[in-house]
């Protein structure tokens, strides 16, 4: 991208107006000077005529003195004007050069500062629609709709650019109000919400086959994140884009009246933006959640179009248990009876996974056998059907917690159960490959709707286990601090357990030593 591009704005005085003034003065100042000089020259001519006619030698001498004096006076008009204009030109030149030097240094300083700020906070302008990254979006003049493609400190102004319509001064810095202007993607010209390019970018695609439950998961998880998690912790969670907010509201209304969402049509999705800010944080996060249609992973051509993978920070891989071959065969009759309600995904799990890896290979250079540094949450959906909640859901997790006290949290138990479930259903290769390819993997089970959907039942859906995958992933990518909360919970438990000891010494010994001993457990029979 070129740093400089002609803009529909006026160049600053130092780069344009100042030089025009200099040229104009130099070209036009002598007009009046001519008139004054001609006055003196005419006076000289009259005196010369009189001198020639005069017979008196004394008068003649005096008249010639007048002639010479007037001639010199006439010349002095030009000399005076030239001296004044020359002085002005020199001073103006020095002034303009000093202005250009100072503004250039300031522009360079601001540009470098902005670069450092963006690099430190990992802030980028990335279009939620076409997924292209740009150094700066296109800003639109609120008066004449002219598009300014380089609204930053430059030769058009350090703090503001004056639009050629002469009706608006556009600020060049966000701190001066640039973020309030309409901004468009430089590639596809789609409007972008004002938080794009102002918050740390986090990109999370949700992957899975068609009808795996991705959209249901996203909206239910977002709803619980806002209403339950963020509300209790004073997190500021907003939808910076009005369209996304409206779409979210519409979908939540559907869930609250017992209706499922329609199937996602977009092969290459628009990202939903969620802005998350922790109290006390200088810069928040803008989360881009990508909900591509399951058909995006059905063939390689569609998979390769998922260009946003080059920005990915974490992944959510949704598995429809009814798309697992062995499980399908074992429960063929029950699945057939409920087919219209549970809507099994038509894409095999390994196919979707392989396509996802192919996209990661082409987008970010993932190499087989080399760990991808970003976390992946593997979520088995639809556990409300066929008693899956009792096998891998939170009901089953409670039994594990009783059996293995070292496991403190239900989601850890669920992770073990789901992992074992996948291995038991001939997806051991998938599990092994996940651990091989990804530095952080955790397994989850959830039901986005809480029950098998029935078109006639208007009772609102109540999801189960929907929040944990999102929280884990957001914690891993640094949006929230779940780990600290878990540590505090464990610490609280240890304090309670310590207080149950008989004396101060054994309390201290337990709290500062025994509780900190590393523990490992290998679970072979869940």
């Amino acid at each position, binding site marked *: 991208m070129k740093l400089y591009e002609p803009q529909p704005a*006026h160049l600053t*005085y130092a780069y344009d*107006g100042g030089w*025009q*003034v200099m040229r*104009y*003065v130099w070209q*036009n*100042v002598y*007009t*009046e*000077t001519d008139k*004054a000089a001609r006055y*003196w020259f005419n006076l000289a001519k009259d005196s010369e005529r009189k001198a020639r006619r005069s017979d008196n030698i*004394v008068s003649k*001498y*005096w008249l*010639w*003195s*007048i002639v*010479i*004096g*007037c001639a*010199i*006076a*006439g010349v*002095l*008009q*030009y*000399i*005076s*004007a030239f*001296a*004044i*204009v020359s002085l*002005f030109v020199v001073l103006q030149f020095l002034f303009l050069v000093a202005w250009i030097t100072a503004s250039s240094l300031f522009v360079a300083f601001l540009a470098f500062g902005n670069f450092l700020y963006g690099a430190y906070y990992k802030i980028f302008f990335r279009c939620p629609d076409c997924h292209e990254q740009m150094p700066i979006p296109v800003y639109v003049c609120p008066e004449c709709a002219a598009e300014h493609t380089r609204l930053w400190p430059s030769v058009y102004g350090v703090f503001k650019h004056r639009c*050629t319509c*002469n009706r608006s001064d556009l600020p060049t810095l966000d701190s001066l109000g640039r973020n309030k202007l309409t901004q468009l993607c430089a590639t596809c010209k789609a409007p972008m919400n004002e938080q794009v390019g102002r918050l740390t970018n986090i990109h999370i695609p949700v992957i899975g086959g068609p009808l795996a439950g991705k959209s249901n998961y996203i909206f239910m998880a977002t709803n619980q994140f806002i209403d339950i998690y963020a509300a209790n912790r004073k997190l500021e969670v907003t939808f910076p884009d009005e369209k996304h907010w409206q779409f979210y509201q519409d979908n939540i209304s559907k869930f609250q009246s017992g209706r499922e969402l329609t199937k996602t049509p977009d092969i290459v999705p628009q990202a939903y933006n969620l802005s998350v800010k922790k109290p006390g944080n200088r810069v928040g996060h803008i989360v881009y959640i990508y909900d591509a249609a399951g058909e995006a992973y059905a063939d390689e051509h569609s998979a390769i179009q998922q260009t946003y993978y080059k920005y990915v920070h974490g992944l959510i891989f949704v598995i429809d248990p009814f798309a697992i071959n062995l499980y399908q065969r074992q429960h063929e009759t029950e699945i057939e009876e409920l087919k219209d309600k549970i809507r099994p995904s038509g894409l095999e799990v390994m196919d979707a996974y392989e396509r996802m890896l192919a996209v990661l290979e082409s987008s970010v250079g993932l190499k087989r056998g080399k760990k991808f540094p970003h976390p992946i949450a593997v979520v088995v959906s639809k556990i409300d059907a066929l008693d899956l909640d009792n096998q891998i859901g939170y009901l089953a997790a409670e039994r594990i917690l009783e059996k293995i006290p070292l496991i403190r949290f239900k989601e850890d138990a669920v992770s073990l159960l789901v992992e074992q479930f996948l291995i038991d259903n001939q997806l051991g290769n998938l599990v092994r490959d996940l651990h091989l390819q990804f530095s952080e993997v955790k397994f989850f089970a959830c039901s986005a709707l809480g029950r098998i959907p029935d078109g006639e039942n208007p009772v609102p859906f109540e999801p189960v286990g929907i929040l944990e995958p999102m929280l884990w992933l957001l914690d891993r990518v640094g949006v929230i601090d779940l780990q600290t909360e878990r540590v505090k919970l464990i610490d609280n438990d240890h304090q309670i357990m310590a207080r149950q000891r008989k004396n101060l010494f054994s309390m201290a010994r337990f709290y500062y030593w025994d509780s900190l001993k590393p523990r490992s457990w290998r679970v072979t029979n869940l």
Partner: protein
Amino acid sequence: MNDGAGAIGGLIAIAIILYIIYLIVVYIILPILAIILGIGLIILGSIVLAGLASGVYVGIVNFINVLIEAHKRLP
């Protein structure tokens, strides 16, 4: 002897006449000439100074007007 006295008398007369001419030139003619030339130079000098003053004044006023006009023409 009468011829010699006559010659001396003539020389003295010439000397006196030359002295008178000297006095007239130095004390009458030259000052008058100086005054006339001086007046001429004063006239010349005054006109030059007047021209310089008017040139500076016209130059400054003209420059300010052109400068204001130049700025008005800027977009």
